[in-house]
């Protein structure tokens, strides 16, 4: 893996590669996309599989965009995800740090974290609906749980992984525990936190759609469930593609933040 990570440092090595005329990756990505859609169109046109073609899905997407349904559903799903994700990550940071910093907190909290990590958040939905009703609360709660459990482990790992000599270096300069925590442990653990956030966001996005499939009156998952009862396959396709595109955009956004915040790392 380490071999392919530093192409920018070896301009001489890239020259012969360009001699073999491999097009830039973005162009390849686009090409793959076009090819994929073409294959899809052919499969749909020949009737081998009973799926709608790109054109009918595209026109359905335009319809749904035109009457505002798609935007409304996407916003409803996004709101749930962001609320649950923000709450989950906000709680995960202090809890993870407590667990990493104080063995007492670690001993008390770890069994619960480990146990609930093995229970899929979706399995909580029936209980959440019984206890919290059928409005937004159970859905946001389940997403919160999914995001929290992914992030808390990352934050915890980040804290226990902080280089001992960095803490010593701060201590010998006279830093009290509070300063060590804020100025050394938090920045040193940031790369872990951001990885945790990315995993947490992925988990939250996956959970929201499933939660909406079970119980909701709007949202992308609900719309797909609704379409299923009417055998409206193009709408299901539009829902799936929208979910993928939004998930990808959110992941790229966090990746961008990660690059910004952890550019100081020595890459190996």
């Amino acid at each position, binding site marked *: 893996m380490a071999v392919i990570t530093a192409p920018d440092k070896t301009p001489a090595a890239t020259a012969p590669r360009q001699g073999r005329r491999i097009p830039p990756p973005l162009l390849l990505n686009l090409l793959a996309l076009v090819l994929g859609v073409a294959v899809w169109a052919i499969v749909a046109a020949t009737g081998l599989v009973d799926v709608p073609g790109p054109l009918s899905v595209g026109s359905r997407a335009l319809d749904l965009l035109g009457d505002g349904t798609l935007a409304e559903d996407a916003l409803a799903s996004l709101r749930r995800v962001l609320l649950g994700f923000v709450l989950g990550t906000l709680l995960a940071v202090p809890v993870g740090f407590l667990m990493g910093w104080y063995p007492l907190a670690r001993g008390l909290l770890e069994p619960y974290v480990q146990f609930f990590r093995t229970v899929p958040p979706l399995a909580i939905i029936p209980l959440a609906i019984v206890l919290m009703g059928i409005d937004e609360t159970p859905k946001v709660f389940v997403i919160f749980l999914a995001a929290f459990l992914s992030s808390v482990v990352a934050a915890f790992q980040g804290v226990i992984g902080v280089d001992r000599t*960095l803490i*010593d*270096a*701060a*201590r*010998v*300069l*006279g830093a009290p525990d509070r300063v060590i925590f804020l100025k050394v442990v938090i920045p040193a653990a940031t790369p872990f936190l951001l990885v945790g956030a990315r995993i947490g966001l992925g988990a939250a996005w996956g959970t929201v759609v499933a939660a909406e499939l079970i119980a909701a009156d709007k949202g992308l998952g609900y719309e797909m469930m609704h379409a299923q009862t009417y055998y409206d396959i193009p709408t299901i396709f539009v829902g799936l593609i929208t979910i993928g595109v939004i998930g990808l955009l959110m992941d790229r956004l966090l990746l961008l933040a990660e690059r910004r915040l952890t550019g*100081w790392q*020595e890459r190996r």
Partner: protein
Amino acid sequence: MSTGTSPNRSSGARDRTARPKISFRDVVKTFPLKDGDFTALDRVSLDVGDREFVTVVGPSGCGKSTLLNMAAGLVGPSAGQVLVDGAPVTGPGPERGVIFQQYALFPWLTVRGNVEFGLKLTSLPAEERTRRADHAIELVGLTDFADALPKTLSGGMKQRCAIARAYAVDPEVLLMDEPFGALDALTRVQLQDQLLSTWTRERRTVLFITHDVDEAVYLARRVVVMAARPGRIHRIVEVDLPYPRTEELRLSPEFARIRNEVWTSVYHQQPAGSAA
């Protein structure tokens, strides 16, 4: 903390009858292992005079780093006392600067950010902080790299940055734990000369750990040779060579004689007690 205790600031470290700056008294350090305790240091007593430059050399496992960590306050003794300015060490403090072998720079801070880290913990006004940071950075020749992140620096520059960070808070004692151990031979010699010239201008008490005999003799007025299993002081060699020390001195027969003496006592130690 202890300013005003040493009135003879200009006369240097000659007078060792005065109260020592750092004092180890019958220091024992044991670490618990599965089958009994491991004795890292066995009744070590050593005085380091005010503004004296002392190096400690010895085979690996002789407890030389433990000795330094105890003076730094990062590790406590199992028995005996570690005193700085006559008071027992209870923890780390900015009056004792430490330089680690692994540089221990904060990788998310620039050179200036690292150097200012300790200064920001003081009550100094911002202007004074900047002035001191600039001075320390200039002292180690990193002015052109003040805004660079550690990942862009070479090993030697990283260690110079770590030295500047320690200098910035103006410690009376410098504790250096094999600071040049990871550097190439040329960089090491340059940093040794730089360290000595800074030490000549702004005298501090230096306790310097190394496994390099040449380095130990070149830098110090006294070389403490340690032995392992258990860690203890084997002997102390006086280096009666004048400062400033130069390349010529390094090549002189007198230097070679002392160097050989230290080398012999490091590598041909009687295995104390191990035969029994």
